[in-house]
């Protein structure tokens, strides 16, 4: 009973999760429990497997061992039904935005609710306009992605993810490709979501932001979570040598 209660308490539970690309192991027995409304930051050198975790969660990359539970229920990644359930409850924002190039900003946001969820187009459009203005885009909604700056595209991508009303938001280095002056707009958006209680996994190298917005930070290297703890602890008194080295490198910048 106790165990069921514990997993029901957690929004997302990643247990002994491994993944391979061919023969190369990219995730090595990852364990991570995320409570409802919790914001977990993922940090680590490039190639350490941060994106792979998010890709496995959404079913874009197959897992080779372990399990993921959502709201206490194990996701069966070989069942279309189960994967659909996960994708309906979560949304991912990619580093490279991945907007649909043949659609305007507004259409990018409305297409999934209208065509996939079969919702009323007018109602969806009103919501989409509200979402786009929430991320600071009101005048650009009829533009196509190639007519928007990187920061604007990234915010359209966030609005598109939010349009499906996810419970869990997965953000993969969403400010890495942005010019510095655009970063703060995007971070403001994420900050607001965090304060509204959205469960999030955020991959980012923005130390100040991660410290402020993350409840916990997991440090990764070579497909492992090396250590996981409160932001203050990871940044100020890391237990592991590799974490210390990484943090000091980033702080020097």
């Amino acid at each position, binding site marked *: 009973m106790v165990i069921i209660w514990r997993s029901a308490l957690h929004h997302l539970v990643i247990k002994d999760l491994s993944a391979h690309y061919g023969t190369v192991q990219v995730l090595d027995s990852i364990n991570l429990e995320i409570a409802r409304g919790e914001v977990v930051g993922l940090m680590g050198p490039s190639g350490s497997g941060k994106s792979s975790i998010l890709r496995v969660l*959404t*079913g*874009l990359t197959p897992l080779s061992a372990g399990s993921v539970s959502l709201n206490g229920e194990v996701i069966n990644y070989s069942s279309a039904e189960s994967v*659909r359930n996960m*994708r*309906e409850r979560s*949304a*991912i924002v*990619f580093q*490279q935005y*991945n*907007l*649909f*190039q*043949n659609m305007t900003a507004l259409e990018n946001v409305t*297409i*999934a609710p209208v*065509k*996939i*969820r079969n919702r009323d187009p007018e109602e969806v459009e009103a919501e989409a306009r509200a979402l786009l203005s929430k991320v600071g885009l009101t005048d650009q909604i009829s533009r*196509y992605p190639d007519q928007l700056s990187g920061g604007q595209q990234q915010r359209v991508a966030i609005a*598109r993810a939010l349009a*499906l009303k996810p419970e869990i938001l997965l953000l993969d280095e969403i400010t890495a490709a942005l010019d510095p002056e655009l970063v703060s707009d995007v971070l403001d958006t994420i900050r607001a979501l965090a304060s509204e209680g959205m469960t999030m996994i955020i991959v980012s190298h923005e130390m100040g932001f991660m410290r402020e917005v993350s409840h916990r930070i997991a440090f990764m290297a070579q497909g492992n979570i090396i250590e996981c703890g409160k932001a203050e602890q990871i940044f100020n008194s890391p237990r592991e040598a590799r974490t210390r080295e990484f943090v000091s490198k980033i702080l020097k910048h």
Partner: protein
Amino acid sequence: MLDYTFQYGQIWPYLPRLIDGAYLALEIAFLSFCGGLLIGTANASLLSFGPQWIAKPIQAFVVFFTNTPQLVQIYFLYFALPDAGILLSSYAAVLIGMTLNAGAYLTEIQRAGFSTRRQSEMEAAIVLGFSRWQQIRYVILPHIARVLFPPLSNHFIIMTLGTSMAAIFGVEELTGQALNINSITFRSLEIFSVVAALYIAITLLASLALGLLGSLLFRTKLRVI
């Protein structure tokens, strides 16, 4: 050297026939392009999404029609098929020959376009919950159409000029009409300079129309010359 005096006056009465010929040239190009587009789309779809065994026969078709002269292909249809009991009018032979030829080239052009679909957009569609068919309908096809519009337009222009070989089979398109009028008036320089101007006019017209269509449908840049 150039002591020739141009006498356009003699050929003006024939201008309506030349314009009829220009119209027929556009018609042949349009019909065979549409036929070729159907063949090319079917082939490229089969190559990208169809079973493995289908690739070989399609490749053979493409290699044959892109490596033999168009003229020879039409000769074959026009002169060799009657021996097999299939009689084609010269118009039909030209139309079928150009359609098959276009089908081969448009297979190649479209196959290249199909391979440009971007994995990243597909992944975005997948995680948003698009079914396979919805991915094709909303992401793959619009993208392919946009990528392919310029090269397909160019091929249409090339085909418009290619219709002149129909004259050899007695089809009275622009060049055919010119040959006829030439044998009546013998004002070759005048006739063929007017014919050249008409070819330029119809290709410009077609480019302009396609350019406008492209900028309306796909926001491609309007560039005629």
